[in-house]
C-alpha cells in the first residue's frame, strides 16, 4: 500500500510538471509561449515591483541604476585597496577635500583652503561645524587623527595606510616599523574643528592626496565599539558623505545588490540631486547589455566585442583612464642593455593598430611615460603630455636601423628574448600581437611569450626574472612623480636594472630641493621624461580607456583620475 502511494505522488508530480515545462523543453520559442500563459497575470506586477528603476529612467525621477563588476570587498577605509571600495567610500564618506570636475581639490569637511607654513611642512585646516555623522555626532578633528593613526598602525594590517602615508605624514614610517609610538604621528586635533598636520617633507601634491579614501575620517567611539565587526555591513557603518550606503550586506540574503541614498544630513545636501543610486553586481557583459537594452540599468561597461556594435551611438561613452601600459626591458640582460636594441623594440610595434583592433575600446596610443589628461603645468596649465609631445613613436624603418646597429654592436645576427605577460584574454591576445610585430619587423628576433597569472608575474618581476615584460601602472596621487620616481636606480620598483644618473638627479632634485618650487619642479619632470624616453628605458604602448553603455540623460557624473572612479554628488537625470 505504501509503495502504491509513493508512485501516486511521483505520478501527480510528473503530470503537474508536464503542463508547466514540457513545451519549454522543445525549443526556446515554445517555452516562451508557455511561460507567457502561466505568468501573464503576475508579469505586470513583477515589472512594477522591481522596475521602479525602469520608470525612473524615463520620468527623470532622480534615480540612477548602475552595475558593478564585483562586490564591495570592504567599506573600511583603512583596508580598502581597490576601485569598487574607493567608489562607495567616496560616495558615502567625505574627507577634508574632494576632487571637482577638473580634478582639483575643493573643500569637503574642511572649511576652506588649508593654511600651509612657509616650509610647507605644517598644514592647518579648519573643519566645517555643521558636518555630521549619520548617527548625529559631529565630524571632528579627532576623527581624522583616529583614522590616520589606525591606518598606519601595524596591528591594523592595512596595505594602503602605510603605502599612502609613509614618508608623507611625519613619523608614519617610524610607527609602521615599530620605532615610534602611534601618538607621534604627525596629525593633531588642536580643537574639535581645527586639525594640524605635520608632513615628513613638503609634499607638493598633498592637497589632492587628502581626497584619497585612506585619508577619510572615522568616528572613534563607533569604530571602537564595533571592533572586528566594523564595516561588515550597512549596520556596522557610519556615513558623512553625500549619500548613505543602504542594504549592503556581503553575507546577507542579497549580497550583490545595494543602494546609495541621498544623505539629508550631509552639509551640502542641497547640491545633491540624485535621490537614489541602485547598484547590482553583473559580471557578464551580455547580461548587462540586455539589462541596459530593457532599460533596467543606466550604465554598464562594455567589453571589446560589444564596442564595435555600439560605438557611435548616443549611448556609447568611452572614458580615458590615467593607466599606462608599456614594455619593461630588463637591462640586466646583455641584449637589452644595448640602447639600439631597446629602441628597435620600442619603435617596431604598431601601436595604432593595437588600440584600434586588439583593444577597440577607445584606448589611446601612448608615446611617453606620463599619461594625458593627468596633470597640468602649474603656470601655463598645459597638459604634461601636450608639452612634451610624442617622445617615442612607432617607426618601423628607424626600428630596423637601430636593430641592425644593435646586432652589430653585440656581434650576433639573431636574438632570442622572452616576453612575460598576464594570462587574461586581453593580455594573451595583446602579447601575441606584440610578438608578431617584433618578429615581423626585426629580422633574426625570436620572442618566446610566457603568459602567467598576475601573482606569478609580480613574483618574477620582483626577482628581475624576465627579458621583456608587458606591464601596466595606475597612479597613486596626482603628480607626475607617481609615473617617474619608479624608474630611478634606487626605487623599490626598479626591477629592470635601468640606471641613468641624469634621470636620478632630476627626480631627486624634484623631490628634495624643488619641493616648494612647483614650476621648476614640473620642468624637472618634463626633462626627466625626455631622458627616460631617449634611453628607451621602457617602450610605452597605450593609455587605457573604458567603454560604457551610458544613458544619455544621465548628466553631471564626474570622472576622477584617481581614487573613486566617479562622483555622483553633482549628477542628475535630465
Amino acid at each position, binding site marked *: 500500500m505504501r509503495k502504491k502511494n509513493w508512485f501516486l505522488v511521483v505520478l501527480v*508530480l510528473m503530470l503537474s*510538471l508536464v503542463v508547466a515545462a514540457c513545451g519549454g523543453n522543445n525549443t526556446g520559442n515554445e517555452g516562451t509561449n508557455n511561460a507567457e500563459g502561466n505568468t501573464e497575470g503576475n508579469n505586470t506586477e513583477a515589472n512594477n515591483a522591481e522596475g521602479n528603476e525602469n520608470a525612473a529612467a524615463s520620468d527623470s525621477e532622480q534615480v540612477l541604476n548602475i552595475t558593478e563588476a564585483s562586490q564591495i570587498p570592504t567599506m573600511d577605509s583603512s583596508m580598502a585597496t581597490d576601485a569598487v571600495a574607493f567608489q562607495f567610500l567616496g560616495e558615502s564618506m567625505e574627507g577634508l577635500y574632494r576632487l571637482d570636475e577638473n580634478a582639483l581639490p575643493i573643500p569637503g569637511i574642511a572649511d576652506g583652503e588649508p593654511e600651509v607654513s612657509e616650509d610647507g611642512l605644517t598644514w592647518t585646516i579648519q573643519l566645517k561645524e555643521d558636518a555630521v555623522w549619520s548617527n548625529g555626532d559631529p565630524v571632528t578633528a579627532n576623527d581624522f587623527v583616529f583614522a590616520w593613526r589606525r591606518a598606519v598602525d601595524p596591528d591594523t*594590517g592595512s596595505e594602503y595606510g602605510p603605502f599612502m602615508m609613509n614618508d608623507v605624514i611625519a613619523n608614519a614610517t617610524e610607527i609602521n616599523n615599530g620605532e615610534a609610538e602611534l601618538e607621534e604621528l604627525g596629525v593633531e586635533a588642536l580643537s574639535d574643528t581645527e586639525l594640524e598636520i605635520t608632513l615628513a617633507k613638503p609634499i607638493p601634491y598633498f592637497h589632492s592626496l587628502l581626497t584619497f579614501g585612506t585619508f577619510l575620517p572615522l568616528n572613534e567611539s563607533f569604530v571602537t565599539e564595533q571592533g572586528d565587526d566594523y564595516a561588515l555591513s550597512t549596520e556596522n557603518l557610519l556615513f558623512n558623505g553625500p549619500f548613505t550606503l543602504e542594504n549592503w550586506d556581503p553575507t546577507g540574503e542579497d549580497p*550583490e*545588490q545595494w543602494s546609495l541614498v541621498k544623505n539629508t544630513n550631509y552639509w551640502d545636501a542641497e547640491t545633491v540631486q540624485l535621490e537614489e543610486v541602485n547598484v547590482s553586481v553583473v*559580471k557578464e557583459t551580455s*547580461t548587462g547589455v540586455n539589462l541596459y537594452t530593457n532599460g*533596467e540599468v543606466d550604465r554598464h561597461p562594455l567589453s571589446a566585442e560589444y564596442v564595435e556594435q555600439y560605438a557611435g551611438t548616443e549611448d556609447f561613452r568611452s572614458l580615458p583612464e590615467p593607466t599606462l601600459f608599456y614594455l619593461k626591458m630588463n637591462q640586466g640582460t646583455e641584449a637589452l642593455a644595448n640602447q639600439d636594441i631597446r629602441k628597435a623594440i620600442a619603435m617596431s610595434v604598431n601601436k595604432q593598430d593595437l588600440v584600434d583592433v586588439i583593444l577597440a575600446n577607445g584606448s589611446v596610443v601612448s608615446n611617453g611615460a606620463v599619461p594625458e589628461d593627468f596633470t597640468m603645468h602649474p603656470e601655463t596649465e598645459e597638459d604634461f603630455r601636450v608639452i612634451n609631445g610624442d617622445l617615442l613613436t612607432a617607426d618601423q624603418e628607424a626600428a630596423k636601423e637601430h636593430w641592425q646597429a644593435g646586432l652589430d654592436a653585440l656581434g650576433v645576427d639573431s636574438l632570442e628574448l622572452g616576453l612575460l605577460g598576464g594570462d587574461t584574454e586581453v593580455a594573451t591576445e595583446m602579447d601575441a600581437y606584440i610578438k608578431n610585430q617584433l618578429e615581423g619587423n626585426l629580422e633574426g628576433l625570436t620572442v618566446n611569450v610566457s603568459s602567467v*597569472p598576475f601573482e606569478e608575474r609580480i613574483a618574477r618581476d620582483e626577482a628581475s626574472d624576465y627579458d621583456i615584460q608587458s606591464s601596466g601602472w595606475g597612479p597613486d596621487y596626482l603628480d607626475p612623480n607617481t609615473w617617474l620616481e619608479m624608474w630611478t636606480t634606487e626605487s623599490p*620598483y626598479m626591477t629592470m636594472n635601468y640606471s641613468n644618473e641624469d634621470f636620478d638627479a632630476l627626480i631627486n632634485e624634484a623631490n628634495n630641493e624643488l619641493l616648494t618650487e612647483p614650476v621648476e619642479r614640473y620642468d624637472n619632470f618634463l626633462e626627466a621624461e625626455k631622458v627616460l624616453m631617449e634611453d628607451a628605458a621602457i617602450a610605452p604602448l597605450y593609455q587605457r580607456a573604458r567603454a560604457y553603455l551610458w544613458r544619455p540623460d544621465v548628466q553631471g557624473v564626474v570622472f576622477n583620475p584617481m581614487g573613486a572612479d566617479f562622483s555622483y554628488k553633482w549628477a542628475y537625470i535630465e
Partner: protein
Amino acid sequence: MAKYILQRLGYMVVTLYLIATFSFFLMKMLPGSPLRAKEKLSEAQQLIVLEKYGLNDPVPVQYIKYIGDLLQGDLGISFQMKNQAVTDILLNRIPISAQLGLYALLIGTTVGMLLGIAAAIKNNSWVDYSANFVSVIGISIPSFIFAGLLQYYVGVELGLLPIAFWGTWQQAIMPTIALAIFPMAIAARFMRTEMIEVLGSDFIVTARAKGLNETAVLFKHGLRNALIPLVTVMGPMAVSLMTGTLVIEQIFSIPGIGEQFVTSVMTDDFSVIMGTTLFFAFFFVFIILIVDVLYGIIDPRIRLAGGKD
C-alpha cells in the same frame, strides 16, 4: 541499514579529510595571497599583512591550524572580503544554489522521464524521433548557450521574464530551464532505452497475459524496473548541476555559491576556494550515499550491508 549508513558516514568523514588535505596543499603550491596591492608594497609591509592572516608560519603549521579550525566549523576569513567569515558568506548563498539546482533536477528528470516513456511506448514513431531530437540537442548544446538565448529572446525581445537577479519566482524560471536541459536530455535517453528493454522482457508479457490493464503494466511493472539505471545517473547528474550553476549563476547574476566560487578563483581568495571546494566535496559524497540508499528502496533485490537483512 542503520549500520550501513553509519559506516558510510564514517567513510565520508575520511574522504572529506583527505580532500581537505589535498586541496590545502595544492592551493599552497599556487601563487596567491591576501595582498591586493602587492606590487606597491615593500617587503616589510607585506610581512605585516601576511602576519595578520597567519601566512608567515611554515606550511605544516598553517595546515594543522586550518584542520583544527575546520573541526570547529571555522573556515577562516576571506582574503578578498576583508574580515568577512567564509562560513557566513557561504551560508547565505548555499540555499539559493540548492533551490536552483533542485528545481532544475526535478523538472529536468521528470520531463526527461516522460519524454523517454513516450518515446519507448511509441517506439520508432514521430514521437520517438522528436523526443530523441530534443535530447540530442540537450546533451550537445551547453547550458550557457541556452541561458544566453533565453535571456535575449524571452527577456529582451519578448520582455516576458526578468533578465537577471534572484528573488521572485519569475526570476527563477529562465535559469531553471537553462539548467534543466541537460538532466532532461540524459533522463530521456536512459528512460527510453531501459523502458524498451523492460517492456520486451518476460514478466511484462506475463503481466499482460494475466490481463492487467496497460497503465498498470506500464507504470507499476515497467517504470519501476526501468527507474533503477536512472537513479544511478541521478548522482552524477546532481553533480553536473553543481558545475552548471557556476555558469548559469554568473549569467543570470544569481548570488549563489557557484558564482562565489568563480569569483574566489579569479581573485585567489584562498579561504573561500577551500570552503566552497569542501562544500562541493561534501555534497558529492552525500549524493552518492543517497543514491546507494535509494537503490535499496527501489529494488529490493539489491541488499545493503552485504545482504544480511
